[in-house]
C-alpha cells in the first residue's frame, strides 16, 4: 500500500526535479567534468600498470561519481520540495523570438497590458501530492505582466496579480502571458524581469524571464 503511494508521487516529483536540474549551469558543467575524470580513470587503469596507479584509478572513479552526483544532491536539498515546475516558450514566435529564447530573453509589447498580444506561453507541471496553488506574477522595471486566461479551474486575482486554484484537476497546463512595457516609459532601468513565484507553498521563485 505504502509502496503504491510512494510510486504514485515519486515519478512526477523526480520528473520535476529532473527538468529543473538539467536546466542549471551546474548540471551543464558537472556532466562533462565527470566524463573527463571517468576518461582519466580509464587511462590510469591501463594494463600492466604500476600498483600506485590502481589507487589513482579508484580515486578518479570516485571523483567522477562525486562530480556527477554531489551537485545534484545539493540542488535537491536547496530547492526541495519539487512541487511545481514552470517552463516557457515565446508565443506565436518569429525566428528572432526563438533566438531570444535561447539567450533566456523574452520580447515585450508596448502599450497597456490588457491590450497587447501575449509574449510567452507558460507551462506548469505540478506534483500530484499538492491540491492547490498560488502563483504570483511579479514584474520589475517598467514592465507589467498578466495572463490572458486563468488556466482550467483557476482564477486570477488582479489585485494581487496571483493565479489561484484550490482544487487542482489538471496537473499539467499552460497559459499565454502578456508582457507590456509602459508606453510613456523612456527606458533606463537596469532590471526588467517578470517572475513567477510560488506564494502558496514554498515561497520560491519558479521562473524568471528577462524582458528585452
Amino acid at each position: 500500500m505504502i509502496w503504491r503511494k510512494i510510486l504514485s508521487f515519486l515519478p512526477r516529483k523526480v520528473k520535476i526535479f529532473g527538468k529543473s536540474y538539467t536546466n542549471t549551469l551546474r548540471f551543464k558543467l558537472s556532466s562533462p567534468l565527470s566524463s573527463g575524470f571517468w576518461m582519466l580513470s580509464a587511462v590510469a587503469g591501463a594494463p600492466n600498470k604500476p600498483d600506485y596507479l590502481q589507487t589513482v584509478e579508484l580515486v578518479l572513479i570516485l571523483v567522477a561519481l562525486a562530480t556527477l552526483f554531489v551537485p545534484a544532491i545539493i540542488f535537491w536539498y536547496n530547492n526541495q520540495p519539487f512541487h511545481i515546475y514552470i517552463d516557457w516558450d515565446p508565443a506565436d514566435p518569429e525566428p528572432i523570438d526563438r533566438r531570444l529564447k535561447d539567450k533566456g530573453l523574452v520580447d515585450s509589447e508596448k502599450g497597456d497590458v490588457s491590450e497587447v498580444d501575449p509574449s510567452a506561453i507558460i507551462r506548469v507541471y505540478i506534483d500530484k501530492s499538492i491540491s492547490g496553488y498560488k502563483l504570483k506574477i511579479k514584474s520589475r522595471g517598467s514592465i507589467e505582466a498578466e495572463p490572458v486566461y486563468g488556466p482550467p479551474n483557476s482564477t486570477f486575482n488582479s489585485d494581487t496579480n496571483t493565479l489561484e486554484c484550490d482544487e487542482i484537476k489538471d496537473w499539467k497546463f499552460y497559459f499565454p502571458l502578456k508582457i507590456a512595457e509602459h508606453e510613456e516609459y523612456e527606458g533606463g532601468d537596469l532590471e526588467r524581469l517578470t517572475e513567477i513565484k510560488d506564494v502558496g507553498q514554498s515561497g520560491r521563485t519558479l521562473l524568471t524571464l528577462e524582458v528585452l
Partner: protein
Amino acid sequence: MLVRTERDRPKPSKIVSAIEETLNGGFEIGGSFVPNQQKVWDFIDAANKVIDLKVYTPHGEVKRAEEIASGNVEQFSPKIADIRFDHNGESVEVEYRDNRLSINSDNEELREYVIQIFESTIFDA
C-alpha cells in the same frame, strides 16, 4: 446596462465607472479582468457558427483548430475565433482575439445582443 468601448471589451473598471457616473457613488476597481479559459470556450460555443478558430499549442505555436490531431480543441488556449451570431433573422460576425472583442456591425441591437452573451458567459461567476 451596456458600456461602449473602442475595442468592445467591457472592462470591469469601465462598467464600474459607468455605474459610478449614474449613481454618483464611490466605487473603485483595480487592475483588469482576466477570464477563465473555460468561460472563453463557453462564449465561443455560444456562437451559431465558428468560421475560423486558431489556438495556441503548449509550445507557443498558433494552429488552426482543424490541425489539432486529437480533435479536442477545448484543451488548448484560444487565440483567435471568428464566430457568427444569428439574432432576429440577422447575422453578425465577431472576432475574439486574445481576450479582445470586435463586433463587425453598426446595428445597435445586434451589438447589444453579442455583448450580453459575452458578459453572461465570461463574467459569469
